[in-house]
């Protein structure tokens, strides 16, 4: 039966536990495309023969190959699309710098897609929440306010936050009443 290689690709992706990205199966994809090319060429010649030579008994065969072509296409597109869904999830779960192991699992085009996605997301996030933007990948729920008030407990010395403002930090504790106001980003840095 045709399309066995395409099914292997699908099964490989399906087997990967929820959301994890297996290595890009370039070999497998190439084999699927070769099979499609062979099927297409056979069909081309049979169609010509059916039309000029009146061989209408070839039509079921042509249909058969055509179904296989459509199936291969479906499997390929679904494979690539599902991988993109997983790569997108990586941006939200992992952050914008991926570990090397993961990057080797991606093809060059997928890497490019990831960079474009990162850029779009960054542009969007910068446009939210005042001057500094809002990192929406931290939590799906919107924050109650853009700034969190913190109270300082213990002297830690001077500390420079992301955006360059240096802050006198003490051991901090999240409390409603406070003296300093730190943006969400700064807070995540401090709590990590």
């Amino acid at each position: 039966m045709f399309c066995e290689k395409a099914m292997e690709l699908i099964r490989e992706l399906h087997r990967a536990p929820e959301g994890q990205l297996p290595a890009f199966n370039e070999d497998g994809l190439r084999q699927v495309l070769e099979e499609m090319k062979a099927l297409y060429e056979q069909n081309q010649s049979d169609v010509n023969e059916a039309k000029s030579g009146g061989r209408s008994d070839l039509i079921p065969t042509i249909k058969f190959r055509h179904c296989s072509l459509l199936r291969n296409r479906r499997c390929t597109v679904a494979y690539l699309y599902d991988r993109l869904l997983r790569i997108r999830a990586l941006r939200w779960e992992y952050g914008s710098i991926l570990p090397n192991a993961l990057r080797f699992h991606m093809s060059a085009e997928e890497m490019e897609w990831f960079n474009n996605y990162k850029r779009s997301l960054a542009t969007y996030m910068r446009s939210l929440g005042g001057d500094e933007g809002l990192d929406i990948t931290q939590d799906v729920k919107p924050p109650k306010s853009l700034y969190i008030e913190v109270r300082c407990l213990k002297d830690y010395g001077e500390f420079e936050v992301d955006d360059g403002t240096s802050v006198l930090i003490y051991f901090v504790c999240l409390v409603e009443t406070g003296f300093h106001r730190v943006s969400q980003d700064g807070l995540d840095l401090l709590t990590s």
Partner: protein
Amino acid sequence: MSEAYFRVESGALGPEENFLSLDDILMSHEKLPVRTETAMPRLGAFFLERSAGAETDNAVPQGLALLPRLECSGVTWFTAALTSQAQVIVTPQPPMWLGLQGSKLELPLWLAKGLFDNKRRILSVELPKIYQEGWRTVFSADANVVDLHKMGPHFYGFGSQLLHFDSPENADISQSLLQTFIGRFRRIMDSSQNAYNEDTSVLVARLDEMERGLFQTGQKGLNDFQCWEKGQASQITASNLVQNYKKRKFTDMED
């Protein structure tokens, strides 16, 4: 981890499968018995090219016999060809296909759907055993005892897509699917809502894929609720995806 990964849902229970759904692709790869109404020449052709013989247009090349097929991860057809040059060729792969008129075969659902039409010019479809009268009475007697995973891991999805083939038993099939699900649903819901932090493999062993999905949704709901009760819902925790990748890194270092 799965929080940010939203895969394409299966559409098999509805009128059409979802093109991009991996579950639907796997489901439609399952086989069903068909009868060919017409010969399909030249599909054994690329096989015959490897012999010295010229390409033949006959749908039944001389002396070709089908050996029983072997079930591996898919279906592998073993075909021995005795051509007029008396060469014996046995190829385990790729599967060799041959269309004989009036022969009974098992084709994957996607192929059967593609070749099927109302006038049944190319093939006519028979119902697999588990959707026929005999099994339908079993399901109506007690649906809970049946191991649906063994019966075909996509019982409901496959059955729903079978309705496309305009069998006279369609009304009965759809009723049977529905009643089977109704009969089994209660137990699935109960077990998914009460199995917290334990090994559930026994519970899901006899469920088909759709039911397993339901079970997992139930488990997720239960786990989320327990998280909320413990007050962990609003804490920042490392995502599962990240933790899994870190775990794997450890094993790489140990190797």
